[in-house]
């Protein structure tokens, strides 16, 4: 809706101080407000990664829409993947308030220079993966997004509020799939356990490296773009999820998982950050396939987008004549 009003370049220390005082008072920053260039860049980076994740995230689940085993499942999976398109769109809208066009961000994604959540570079191999993704991946996303709904930047926070409201059903449909499979035939139960085994650790990685290792954490926390650190959010997710697994008779694939009675936290074993680095640097199981699918959709759709623009121009010329 608006162009940023401040000139680019170095920020005036007095303005930075005033800005940080606003943040400290818990005020919401709106697109036309003065903001440090660094804050703006962090927002664009984070929101575009988030939006890209929603859009790329359509692919692993989209892989099973045509094979969903009942009409009810087919419809709810399609509705869920459609929501992800909507969520990507809402967040791109947020970046557009900062004067960064969606097309520019999509070009970065397709060029392979933008990041998105590493989890979507894993393959979906069985129907149970639809359960595991809804339960674990959306479960982790909800923990993260509930926090982001309080982000200091208004358009991001408002997009998160809308997304959280809509996403409640995603996690439930996933958990329901897992619960149904876990209570089903031996083959179904094995399928559910296998999916949990494959998705558990990548879901923990979704929260990002430990705050000590995360280059952006301190700044994001100071400016209240994030309110909580990666480790705290990850712990919260584990604490929520462990009892849910037990309730449906599935086993979390971590021999070191133990309950700390004093803190109430479920302590978990070491995360393989080497695997995480491999995946985010492009060498995960499906990175190439995911980007290839997005590139193909974008290229195949070019004539459609162009035609609509050409038609609008013709119409405008006709009504001007």
């Amino acid at each position, binding site marked *: 809706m608006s162009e940023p009003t401040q000139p680019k370049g170095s920020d005036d220390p007095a303005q930075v101080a005033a800005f940080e005082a606003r943040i400290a008072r818990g005020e919401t920053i709106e697109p036309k407000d003065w903001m440090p260039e660094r804050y703006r860049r962090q927002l664009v980076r984070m929101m575009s990664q988030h939006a890209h994740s929603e859009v790329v995230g359509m692919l692993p689940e989209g892989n099973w829409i045509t094979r969903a085993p009942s009409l009810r499942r087919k419809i709810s999976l399609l509705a869920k993947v459609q929501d992800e398109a909507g969520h990507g769109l809402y967040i791109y809208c947020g970046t557009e308030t900062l004067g960064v066009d969606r*097309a520019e961000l999509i070009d970065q994604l397709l060029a392979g220079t933008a990041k998105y959540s590493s989890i979507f570079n894993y393959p979906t191999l069985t129907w149970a993966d639809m359960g595991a993704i809804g339960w674990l991946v959306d479960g982790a996303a909800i923990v993260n997004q509930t926090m982001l709904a309080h982000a200091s930047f208004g358009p991001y926070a408002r997009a998160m509020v809308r997304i959280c409201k809509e996403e409640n059903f995603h996690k439930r449909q996933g958990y329901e799939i897992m619960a149904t499979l876990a209570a089903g035939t031996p083959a179904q139960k094995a399928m559910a356990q296998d999916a949990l085994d494959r998705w558990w650790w990548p879901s923990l990685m979704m929260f990002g490296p430990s705050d000590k290792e995360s280059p952006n954490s301190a700044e994001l926390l100071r400016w209240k773009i994030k309110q909580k650190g990666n480790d705290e959010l990850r712990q919260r997710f584990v604490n929520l999820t462990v009892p849910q697994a037990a309730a449906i008779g599935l086993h979390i694939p971590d021999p070191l998982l133990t309950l700390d009675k004093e803190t109430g936290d479920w302590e978990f074993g070491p995360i393989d950050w080497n695997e995480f680095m491999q995946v985010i640097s492009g060498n995960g199981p499906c990175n190439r396939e995911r980007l290839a699918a997005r590139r193909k959709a974008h290229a195949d759709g070019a004539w459609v987008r*162009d035609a609509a623009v050409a038609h609008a121009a013709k119409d405008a010329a006709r009504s001007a004549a």
Partner: protein
Amino acid sequence: MSGQWPLWEVFTQPADGSPHEHAGSVHAPDAEMALQNARDVYTRRGEAVSIWVVPSSAITASSPAEAGPFFDPGNDKPYRHPQFYKVPRGVKSEE
């Protein structure tokens, strides 16, 4: 051709009688498609009874730098608020 679709701001009316509220934005090549896209994107759960779409470029916004001078004058006019006026004890007022 770039094929870039312009941006439209979407306002939805959640229920009959309530005002239109800003919901977000969509890209669309023209007004009819903007309306359809807004319907598909922002009312998937039946959240609206009416939609407005406005080209984003047509919106004029007040400047945050002038927020003080622009809005403060309204802050010291208590006589615009009903609480400024006394109602005799025992008389029911409308609110």
